[in-house]
C-alpha cells in the first residue's frame, strides 16, 4: 500500500503540481499559507532534486513558527501535511525509520488539536492509513479502523469532504475481504472524485484527493477485472487531469 501511495504521490507532485494552483491570491498582504499546498509540493521536488531534506525541513520550521506565533489552526494542518511529504522523501531515500518518525510526528500534531476541523480529521485518517506498514502487522486492522473512523467523523462535520471519501475508499481497498473490505471502494472513490471536481479552489485550503481517487479507482477496476469500467474511468480521469503524469503513465501501462 505504501509503495503504491509513494509512487503515486511522487509522480503527481513531480510533474503535475501546477494544475491545482488555480486560485487567485486574495490580499495584497500575502502569507506563507497562500498557495501552501503547491509550496509544499515545490519544496518536496526541490528536496528530491537536491537529495537533501532541507528545503522541506525549512518550510516545516516556518510552519511551526507560524503555528506558535499566530495560533492560526491552518498552520497545524499544513505542517502535518508537509511532514507527510517529508516521510515520502525519506521513503525515497529508503530511510523507513525517519519516514515513520515524520509520519508519527504528523499524526501526533493533528491529534493534539482540541478543535479539529473536518479537514484535520480527514488528514489524520489518511496519515493513520499511511502509517500501517510501519507498524506491527497485527495492529493493522485496528489502525485501519481508526483511520476510517476519523474519515467518518470528517464527513459528519463536512458531508462534502472529498478527502474523507478518498480515505474511506483507500482503506476499503486495502481491507481484506474476510473483514468486509472491497465492498464500498467504488462508491467512496466516485464520491471523492465528484466532490473534488465541485470544490471551489481556495489557496489556503487543501485540494488533494480527487486525482488520487481516480488512480485508486482505476487500480480497483483492474484488480476486479472490470475492463469496461476501467476504460471509462481512465478516459474520464485523463479528461479531468490531462497533465497528470501518473494517470498518463497508468494509461500507458494498461494499454
Amino acid at each position, binding site marked *: 500500500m505504501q509503495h503504491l501511495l509513494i509512487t503515486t504521490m511522487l509522480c503527481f507532485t513531480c510533474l503535475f503540481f501546477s494544475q491545482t494552483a488555480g*486560485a*487567485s491570491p*486574495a*490580499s*495584497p*498582504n*500575502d*502569507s506563507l*499559507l*497562500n498557495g501552501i499546498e503547491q509550496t509544499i509540493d515545490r519544496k518536496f521536488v526541490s528536496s528530491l532534486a537536491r537529495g537533501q531534506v532541507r528545503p522541506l525541513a525549512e518550510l516545516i520550521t516556518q510552519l511551526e513558527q507560524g503555528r506558535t506565533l*499566530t495560533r*492560526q489552526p*491552518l498552520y497545524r494542518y499544513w505542517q502535518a501535511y508537509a511532514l507527510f511529504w517529508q516521510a515520502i522523501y525519506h521513503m525515497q531515500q529508503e530511510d523507513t*525509520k525517519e519516514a*515513520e*518518525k515524520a509520519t*508519527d*510526528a504528523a499524526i*501526533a500534531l493533528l491529534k*493534539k488539536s*482540541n*478543535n479539529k*476541523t*473536518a*479537514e484535520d480529521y480527514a488528514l489524520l485518517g489518511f496519515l493513520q492509513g499511511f502509517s500501517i506498514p510501519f507498524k*506491527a*502487522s*497485527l*495492529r493493522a486492522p*485496528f489502525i485501519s*479502523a481508526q483511520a476510517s*473512523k*476519523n474519515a*467518518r*467523523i470528517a464527513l*459528519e*462535520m*463536512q458531508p462534502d469532504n472529498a478527502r474523507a471519501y478518498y480515505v474511506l475508499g483507500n482503506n476499503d481497498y486495502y481491507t481484506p*475481504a*474476510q*473483514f*468486509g473490505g472491497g465492498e464500498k471502494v467504488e462508491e467512496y472513490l466516485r464520491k471523492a472524485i465528484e466532490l473534488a471536481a465541485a470544490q*471551489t479552489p*481556495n*489557496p*489556503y*485550503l487543501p485540494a488533494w484527493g480527487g486525482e488520487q481517487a481516480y488512480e485508486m479507482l482505476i487500480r480497483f477496476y483492474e484488480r476486479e477485472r472490470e475492463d469496461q469500467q476501467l476504460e471509462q474511468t481512465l478516459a474520464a480521469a485523463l479528461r479531468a487531469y490531462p497533465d497528470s503524469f501518473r494517470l498518463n503513465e497508468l494509461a500507458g501501462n494498461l494499454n
Partner: protein
Amino acid sequence: MAQDTLRGVVLNQQREPLMAAHVYWQKQPSLGTFTDIQGRFTLPFSTVADSLRISLLGYEETGLQPQPGAQPLEIFLSATEYELSALLVEGKDPISDAFLLTKQEQLDIYLNPVAAADPLRALINLPASTNTSESANPELRGSSADRSRVLVNGVPIYRPVRNTQINGIGNFSLFNTELLQHQYVYPTNAPLTRGNSTAGAVAIETVKELPQNYTQLSLGLANAGVLRGQRLDEHNFFQVYTNRQFSGGFLTLNQSKIRDLESFQSQDAGFNLHLEPLPDLQVDLLAYGIDESYGLRLNILGQTGPLESQRQRYFHALRLRKSYRKGSLSLHHGFDGSKTYFTFGNTDSRQRQRNLYTAFDWRRELNERWEMQTGIVHEQQRYFFHDSLPVDWFRNGLDDPAFAEADSLRMQRLETYRYVRYQPHDDWLLQAGLRMSLLKRDFGRYLSGQFSARHQLTREQALLLSGGYYQSFSLPTSFDKQIRLLNSWQLALDYDYLSTEDLHLHLAAYYKRESGQYDPLQNQLEDHRKIFGLEALIEQPLTTYWSYSLSGTWLQQRVFGAGQEWSGTQDQLFLAKALLQYRHPDWFDFGLNYITHNGLWTTRLSPAAEPGLAPSFPGLPNDFRLRPYGSLNLSLSRYFPWGKRSLVLFLNVNNLLDQGNESNLRYTPDFHENGREYYQRRSIYFGLVWKL
C-alpha cells in the same frame, strides 16, 4: 477608486480574524477572493446589484448587501452548530486522560501472555500492578484490591472477580474481552470523574462498533462457550454469550500439582447492547449473570478441612449519552446483586448484597483551552448477613462452638463533583477536581480534591505530576460487618519516554498515606499506613517479531497504630517482571513471562499458653518474611484464517518451573508451625476458539 473596491475583514464571534474565508458576489462568483491571515479581503464591487456571500469551513455561510462608502466592512461568522454524533463523542478520550497510565485495547489483552484473554489479568504485567496474590482483582501501587475501583461504562462493579478465594485457576475477572473496546488504567490519583477511589481505577469501555456478524465457539480444558455478535443495522448491534466451566479435565490433567482444589464449576451469560436511536444518542447496556461454586481443602488457623462456596451474581451497567455541540450529557445506572454462601469448619456464612448506582455527568468544552465536567452520583448499598461464626476466632473446627448472627448494613452516598481541564499551551495540560458528599448521615460531609500537571518536555518525553486527597468505603464481609470511610493522600510523579523506535521507558515515584484499614487477624483498625514506591519499565521491539519488556518496582509499606509501627505485607518488596514475546501472523504467537519478588511479610502465631486459649503473637504484625516468589508462565497460540472464518489454538502453562511459592504459614490445631501454604504449582491449560 475607493468606490470601485470593497474592503473588509472577516472575524469570528470572539473578534478573531478568520483566514481562508471565501468572499464572493452571488451573481458574479468569478469576482471572489479569500481572506488573508488578518481576515482581510479586497474585491471589486459587483457591476450589478448583488449580494456578497462569505463562506468558510466550520462556519455558517452568511450574506449581505454592502453599500459603497461604508468601509472597511466587519463581517462576523458564527461557528457551525454541528450535531455532534455519538461517533464524535466516542472519538474523544475521557476528560481526565492526563491521569492515565495506560490505555489497553482489545488486542493488547489478547496478545498479553499473562492475561489469558482476561482484561483485568492483563494489568498484572504493568509495573504499577503490585498484585502479589495471583488474583485478577487489581492491586495498584501498594494498595489493597478493595480500595481500587473497576468501572464499566462509568458504573462501578465491586469485587469484579470470579472464585475470589480459589488458590488456582479461578482468579479471573467477570468481564469478557470480546465485549471490550478500551481499558483505561489509573494507578494513583484515579480521576474524581471516575468515582472517589482511595487507590487506583480501571475504566472499561465496551465496544461501540461491530463490523460484521459472527459466531465464536470456544472449547478448553475447563470451559465451553458460545458468543454471537449480531448487527441490527449500521450503528446498532448486540453481543450475547454463555460459558460453562467444568473442572474434570483440568483437575485430571493437573492432579499431581493442584491438590487443594477439589472441584469448580460455573455457568455464566452476558449481553452487550449498543444502540444509536438518534445520531446524537448512544445507549450501552452490559448485563451479566453467573452461578458458580467450588470446593477446596484448606488449612485455616490450624484447622484443615473442606471449604465450599457458592455464589449467584447478576449486574448490569447502563449508560445513556446525549451528545450536543461541544459536550455531552450522560446518565449511568447500575445494579449489582449477589447471594454468596460458604462453609468451613464451624463457619457458615450466607450473604446477600444489593447495590444501586445512578449518576449524571455533564461534559462541556468551554473553548479551545478549557473543558469542564460536572456530575452528581447517588449510590445505595445493602448487605444482609446470616452467619454461624466461631465463638472464639481461633477455634474454627467443625466441633468448635459457634454462634448465629443475622445483621444487615445499609450505606447511602450522594456526591457531586466538578472537574476542569485547562491547556494553556500545546505542551502543558492542567487539571483539577473537587468531589464532595451532600449527605451528612452515616459519614458526615467529606471533601476530596485532586490536581495534575502534564508537561510534554520534548516530542518523546512527558512528565506528569499528580496529587490529591480521596475518600471511599470499605467492602464489608462476614468477619467485618462494617462499612468504613477510607482516606488516602496521594502524590505521584510519572515520566515517560517513547522514541520513534518504539523504545518505551517509564519511571515513577509515588507516596501515599492511607487510613481506615481494618486488620481482621489483629481485630483492630490501623491508624494509617504509608506507602512509598518506585517504578521503572523498559519495553522495546527487538525485531519485527520479537519484543521484550522489563520492569522493577520497589515498595515501602509501613503501618502505624497503637503507638507502634510495623511492616505491611509488601514492605521492602522488590517486584520484577520480564516478558519476552514472539508474534508472527503466519506462524504463531509465543510469550514467556517471569514474575519474581523477594517475599511477603506475614504474622506469626505462637502456641497458646494452655489448650483452648488463643494463640499469642510473638512479635508485631507481619514479623516474618516468606520465601522469595517466582513464576514463569508460557503462552503459545496459532491463528489459522480461511476466508471469513478463523481458528485459534492456544496453550498456557502457569508456573512452568513448578516453583513452590509460599502464600502463608501453616499451623497445627494447637498453633505450632507446620510448614507452608503455597500458591498454584505448575498447571497446563489448552483449548481453541473457532470464529464463524
